[in-house]
């Protein structure tokens, strides 16, 4: 029972914190809750489309990013989009760095204060950005 209460409490807290803003300013409906923030920018996908790998479309809509990735070590080694950016429901534009440390725990030792892509070219991760 106590567990249930605490779960309810957490839910209510989140609901409360987001619900208050909805009321604010009447017309400002763009509530920034977790997944919707990025999804709001992403075209809606059908259930069937969600079963396609990201790059099927991104080859065409973001060809530069696709080709940076495809020709990178990540691309060659089949480290796919969702491994860093999450699947559709939990899509993030900028991944949490902890998704890097699955594999790059050792490499992360030299970067105390900056995320990998602050120095290494985004999506290519070769060499350093100017």
């Amino acid at each position, binding site marked *: 029972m106590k567990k249930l209460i605490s779960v309810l409490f957490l839910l209510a807290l989140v609901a409360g914190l987001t619900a208050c803003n909805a009321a604010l300013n009447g017309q400002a409906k763009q509530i*920034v809750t977790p997944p919707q923030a990025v999804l709001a920018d992403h075209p809606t996908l059908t259930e069937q489309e969600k079963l396609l790998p990201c790059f099927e479309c991104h080859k065409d809509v973001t060809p530069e990013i696709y080709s940076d990735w495809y020709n990178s070590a990540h691309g060659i080694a089949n480290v796919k989009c969702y491994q860093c950016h999450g699947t559709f429901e939990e899509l993030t534009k900028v991944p949490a760095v902890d998704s890097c440390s699955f594999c790059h725990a050792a490499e992360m030792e030299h970067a105390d204060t*900056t995320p990998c892509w602050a120095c290494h070219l985004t999506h290519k991760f070769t060499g350093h950005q100017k």
Partner: protein
Amino acid sequence: MSVTRRDFIKRSAALTAASYVGMNLPIGQHNVAQAVDADKWVRGTCRLCGAGCRLEMGVKNGRPVALRGVPKARTNYGYLCMKGMLFYKIMQHPDRLVKPLYREKKNQPFREVSWDQALDIAAKGFADSVKKFGSDSTAYYGSGQCQTEETYIFQKVMRGGLQTNNVEGNPRLCMASAVGGYLTSFGADEPIGGYDNIERSYCIFIIGSNMAEAHPVIFRRVMRRKLDNPDKVKIINADPRISPTSRIADMHMQFRPGTDLALMNAMAYVILEEKLYNQKFLDDYCVFRVGKDKKQVNMAAFKESLEKYTPEKAARTCGGNITAEDIRTAARWFAKSQGTLSMWCMGINQRKQGVWANNLIHNLHILTGQLCKPGADSLSMTGQPNACGGVREGGGLCHILPGHRLVKKEKLRNQVEDAWGIPRGRIPPKPGYHTMAMFQAVNEKKIRAIWINCTSPAQSLPNVTPYRKGLQSDDVFVVCTDIFPTKTTECANLILPTAFHFEKTGVYGCTERRSQITPKAVDAPGEAMPEVWIVREWALKLAKELNDPVIAKCVEPFLGKEPDCELPEAVWDEYTQKVTKGRDNDLRGATYEVLKSMDDGVQWPAPTKEFALTGGTVMKFVRGSDPMAETLAKDDKPYQFYGPAHADKKLWVWLRPYVGADEEPDAEYPLYLSTGRIIDHWHTTSMTGRVPELLRANPYSYVEINPKDAARMGVKPNDMVEIESRRGRVEMPAKVVEGPIEGMVFAYWHDMHEDRMINKVCKDAYDPGSKEPEFKICACRVRRISGPRALKPYITTLNG
């Protein structure tokens, strides 16, 4: 750089918020996964392929919450693929089997029973079968995913207790031809070297392996080697299909399926013609042999046997995408590099000529002396985490006892009987049914009780339909031990829920002879129990049912042991200390204590603890690296090929002619069909299909069709097509892609949907030596049935 917990949480809060709006925050995000809120990190091995990647599981409040690579491990150096990153998510999956389930007849629903009842039922089922139909009416079918302790104790009870050698496992479907190849060419099973050679190699010959998807973390090492040394290192990829592995290749040799024997004989022809062989190595260590009676011949006879395989002729045989000059170039790269490493997998092994294909790869290495030196090795990649280990070395196949001992040799049987303290003559001299014969025997009602552990033959056998019918019959009593419902639990009378990886303790041996321990980190859900406990309790009941004290004797050393840690350790100790002693896989130094202290594990042979603590034998047969090369030395040469299968202690170069596939295309079935894996899924998807991210990434099977064939058949991308062979038909969407060679289609085999299960179409012909089936080649026809159709991923549930 110490961060308090609150700071850490605040930082996570900020980073999460920032990630939703695509903002880069200039704050330290260092080691976030490391800092993930775990109570403890437990070091073990990934179980989703044979690479042997080491990882740590984060546990919080007794639940798995995260995984991370172990940077110091000599297998993966910290890297993981997405299967490895995500597999902890299935441990708490709602589909987990948590109670023993039973039904008398296979058309009834399952009902829950207690463990005591379940083990009684299992014991009675097997005992009845023995009483009515004899010992050989019972069988065990295990898996390369079982821990060594599990395979060992199961086969001990079957052979020593029930007195049958009907002990098999799914490695027969993937590794048997490699075993045959190593034994006949080198005199000893398992590779001479290991991954360590990747970074020292100058030519890497990949054949019949899409390692970019099947072994992504090992592929990363190959890729790094190439990308870091683009001019010095040559990569040859030989495969009928252009795959993601081809992307790092200097040369892709695309041959017609089944013609690889001609291709490799032609490379040998060039090596002889251009005198690229290593005469000293041949003089010191090799002989040439031919035929069933292993007749020794000289090099001239070998050369003569290759006359049919001039590069020009072979190029024609191989189907036109390869030129004679390609073959010459490949042979030169192979022979002349400072260290050449071959790597292969199912494309070579799952063949009617699988052993011969293995032999021909080894031939190239023996001829050129590309063995036993840095960067040189003939390395068969393993598909499962403990095929190379537990099953091959632990006695998991019908013809071999633990410690690489042949069943048919009385002396070796007696060694095992003595070690177990059971009467001599207890282990029958006749090898049991190999896998395909075993399921044939189920069909023919010769086997009346079968225990299927941790694998799903009802989906994974080739030409699966008739074998499924056999398993579904009420004439055979089927016990399944597993963690999830599968196509095979659908055929079971009794389902026993088992503890998963990290829910019990045990050892896996990966591709490179490396034994690595995974200790228990979390409790298994519900009433799931470790297999070693299940076998022990079952054997005790079996002894009573059959009134046979020797069955109880088989588990006597393990009585009273706590099942999660003590019991497997006692089994491991018996196996390593008593049974591997003095054998070529001597593991006496690799105790639990030693294994637990290692970031990775121990490569056998490792006869002493001191040696095991160094990591063991990096290069077998080489003095200074392999301690047994000293103790078993027969002369003062630097390499000692002491393997048990070659009395002359030599490497054998084999004269093997080119023979094609069992079923070649014809007018009726004009295309080759081959099958394979994709990176996101493993085997039958009973595990990876239950990780939403992985299922989403490849929700169902596709068939890849060459654009020229597609144009001819009027097939457009994503059209639904029917693939039909003489055995069965399936329907799946088409991918039109420059992958398979013209005249061949390639289907992914992971899908468990009835309409898309490609193993219904595959052929069950098998290699006469290794008994491994030819999954990789059969003849089929393909027909467009409709435009794109909405498909749903499918994972089986308990009641189908």
